[in-house]
Structure formats: C-alpha cells, structure tokens
C-alpha cells in the first residue's frame, strides 16, 4: 500500500505542466550563474556573488516557491478533488498517509531544487564546498517547508495563496528585519546550515547552527503532528465535498 501511495502521489505531483515550469525556475538559477561566470569575474568577487545568488535566489526564492506548490498539493489536491476519501477508506493508518506523502513531497522538492543549487554553485565559483553547503541547507529547508505547507493545506482550502503570502511577507520581508523574527524563519534556519557546511565563503546570517537545527526540527515535528492530527479528525461523510 505504501508503494501505491508513493506512486499516486508522485504521479499527481509530476504529471503536470507546472513541474516543467518549476524545473525551468531551477534552470534559470543555473543560467544566471553561467552568464555571470562568462563575464570572467575575479575569484574573490565570484565567491561573494555566487553566495548571494545561492542564498537570495536559491534558498530565498526557488526553494520556498517549489516547496509551497509541491507541499500544498501533495495532500491538498486530493482534498480539493475529493479523492482523499478513497485513501481514507483503505485500511491504512492516517499518520502513514501523511508521512508517506510528506516524504514524497520532500523528495520531489529536493530533486527540483538541490541539483540546481549544486550546479549553479559549482559553475559560479571555484570552491565546491560552498555549493554543497547550500545544497544541504536546501534539503533540510525543503523538509521544514513541505511539512509546514502540508499542515497548512489541511487547515485551509486556500493553502497555496496563504502559503505564498507567508513566503513573500514573512520570509521575504519581516524575517530579515529583526533578530527576534529571524529565529522563526525557515530561510534563516537554512542559511545557518549553509554557513556551517559551506566553508569560508559562506557568510554569516547571525543564527547559531545548533539553534537553527533545533528550531527547524521543532517546527517540522510540530507541523507533522498538526497534519496528522488534522487528517485523523477528518470524518468520512456520505457525500464527497
């Protein structure tokens, strides 16, 4: 049953034009890195510019945009279409449905984001460690984001819009302004991870690595718990909604 669950989720997530568009977003990151490198920048400048490219574009825009679309539609589209009832009617524990869907959404997000970050990072400058650091950060950030957005999709039917607003307003503007709000921002968590894995050129955002990982794990666990709780309290009624 788990295999079937994985395959229907994968098919729902990948069989659309929008996957192509999301892949194009990642390709755009690589293209910018290629164009930049073709301009023959100095070594020191290329590290700084590539770091900002990976941090601001890769972690700041590409990752949340992919995660919000993939994360909200992994379970959300089944809720929208009413096909969730066929899943819930099967003898599968509901926490298992949430976990399997989350893992699939996470992996899809990683596949769409991490390779683009690695390639752009390696092309943009010499040091592979920087690229790997940001790729690791995007993989961990993807888990936190997809868990949050999956929980959101169980809370409201307009999860994608609300998730987008959250990404732009909170992650984009508010979280960068104050040190207090920085602690509760997925983007800042991911950047702290990138700095600790990314070597000398990875910069500093001001969150300790240990704190970022702990906060990220806490948010992820809370989101998963919320999602499971919401799905467990869904009642099957006579008609599909």
């Amino acid at each position, binding site marked *: 049953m788990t295999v079937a669950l994985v395959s229907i989720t994968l098919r729902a997530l990948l069989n659309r034009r929008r996957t192509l568009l999301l892949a194009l977003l990642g390709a755009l990151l690589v293209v910018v890195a290629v164009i930049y490198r073709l*301009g023959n920048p100095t070594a020191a400048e290329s590290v700084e510019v590539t770091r900002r*490219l990976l941090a601001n574009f890769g972690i700041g*825009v590409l990752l949340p945009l992919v995660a919000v679309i993939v994360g909200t539609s992994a379970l959300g589209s089944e809720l929208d279409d009413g096909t969730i009832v066929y899943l819930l009617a099967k003898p599968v524990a509901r926490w298992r449905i949430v976990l399997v869907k989350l893992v699939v959404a996470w992996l899809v997000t990683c596949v769409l984001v991490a390779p683009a970050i690695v390639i752009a990072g390696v092309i943009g400058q010499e040091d592979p460690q920087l690229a790997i650091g940001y790729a690791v950060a995007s993989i961990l950030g993807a888990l936190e984001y997809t868990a949050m957005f999956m929980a959101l999709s169980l809370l409201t039917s307009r999860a994608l*819009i609300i998730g*987008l607003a959250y990404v*732009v307003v909170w992650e984009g*503007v508010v979280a960068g302004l104050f040190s207090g709000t920085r602690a509760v921002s997925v983007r800042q968590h991911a950047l702290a991870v990138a700095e600790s894995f990314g070597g000398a050129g990875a910069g500093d955002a001001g969150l300790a690595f240990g704190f970022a990982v702990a906060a990220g794990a806490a948010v992820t666990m809370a989101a998963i718990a919320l999602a499971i709780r919401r799905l467990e309290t869904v009642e099957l009624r006579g008609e599909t909604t």
Partner: protein
Amino acid sequence: MSASPEAAGTIYDIGYRHYDGPRLGRRGAVMAVVGAGLRAIFGLGRSGRSKVIPWGTLILATMPAIVAVAIRVLAGDLIELYSYDSYLWQIGALLPIFVAAQAPELVVNDIRHRVLPLYFSRPMSRFDYVAAKLGALSLALLSLTLLPVLVLFTGRVLAGDDVVGAISNEAGTLPAIVGTGLIHALVLASLGLAICSLAARRAYAAGAVLAVFLIGSVVGEILAEAGGFADVAPFLNPLAIMDGTRQWLFGGSVAESPVRAADVPLALYGLATLAVTLGAWAVLAFRYRRISV
C-alpha cells in the same frame, strides 16, 4: 400544475416581461465590466477576508506619506523622509503583492469556468473585454502608485505657513507625480494581466506574478553589484525599468535603485518599458484570440 380547459395549441402567458428601459450598448457593457472589476479588486460586497490584502497594501502604501506629513507638521522642515521621486521605489515591494493577489480575481475564473461566452453575447468584443479588465486593474493600481504621493503632496502644500506660495512652489512636481503614477499603474496592470491570463488557477497565477517580480528583483540586485553586469541588472527587474523611465522623463535618481549603478542612456529604460507593455498586450491578444467561445 392543474390543468384548465384551454384550446389546444394555446401559448400560455406565464408573465415574462419585456425590457423597455434604455439600452446602454457597448459603452455601458464596458463600464459595467470596469465597475465589477473594481469591486472585485477591492473586495467590495465580499467577505472581510477578501478585503485584507487590497486594503492592507493600500494602507501600508499610504502610511509612509501620512507619517511624513505628520512629522513635517510637528517638526517642520527638519527631516525629509520621502521625496516624490523615491516614494514608489520605497513602497515597491507592495506593488507585486497587490497585483499578484488581485489581478487573478479579474481574469482567471472567467476562463476557468468558461463564462466568456456570457460576456461576448453582449455588445462587447474581445478587445473591449481585455481593455475593460486592464482599465479596472490600472485604476485600482493608481490607488497605490498615485494616491500616496498625492497625499504627500497635499500634506506638503497644507503644512506650510503660506499655502498659496507652497502651491506655486510644489505645482511644478505635479506632472512628474501624475505621469509616474500612470506609467507604473498601466505597466504593472498589463504585465500582471498577461501573466494571469495564461494561468489555469488563481493560486498559480498569483505564484507566477510573484515569481516574475521576486526573481527579477533578486537577480537584478545581485548582478548590480557584480562588476561587469551593472548595465544589464536594472533590465531584469520590472520595477527598476519603470524607475529608469521615470528618471528619463522627469529626472531625479533614487539611491537604492540599480538604475543609478548602471551606465546606459536613460532612453533605453523608456524603450524597455514600451517593450514590456507591448509584449504583455501581445500575450493578451494572442491568449484571448485563441480562446474559443
């Protein structure tokens, strides 16, 4: 229905009425779509939830002007918080949010629910439909691109001791204020509608609009500081293109804008603005010509 004895073949009069009032024609139909569009954008006649983003961004956009005027009244000419030139650049983050949230309301569901035939069965062509939607979004955007600057202007005029003198002092800035507001509103509306007309669902349309503006500004900002690309950088960000056009037409540079770092003839920004707008209109024309009703 109780059967009453009637001759066979009688057509019952079941009370349908003729409409004898004035027929407003094509103009009336277009104005109705503009009006309905404005109501949809500002969430009038809808739940409180759909008013949050339009009115929230409007208030956030106007707030700096009000604060600046208040400070001017209280503290006099000591501090110059915002100039007319830089105001739109300062509130720039709000413009894509407004467009992304409200432009999909206008066009996406009409296509998704296949109600366009209902529009076109009225004395209204496809061109009229697109023009009406564009007009509605542009008018709504003026509340962000023109209204706050006019508030600032009015405050400056009224705050002085000599109102008549202040009017003659500040009146010279009015063409720049109005022109900038109109350009921003029209270009943003065209670009937003063009993107939204291609999307299948409102949420995707919002995401696509945000993606275009976010990626444009992020990449533009990064490349502006990378040595060899300062000249290209502003052209990646629609807001920077419009800022360059404003500077070309009315003068006055903005410190934070990538336009200042670039060294290209300002007329190029005007050309780029024209290209973006015409490109957006071409997409709209293509999209709405292709839809079969």
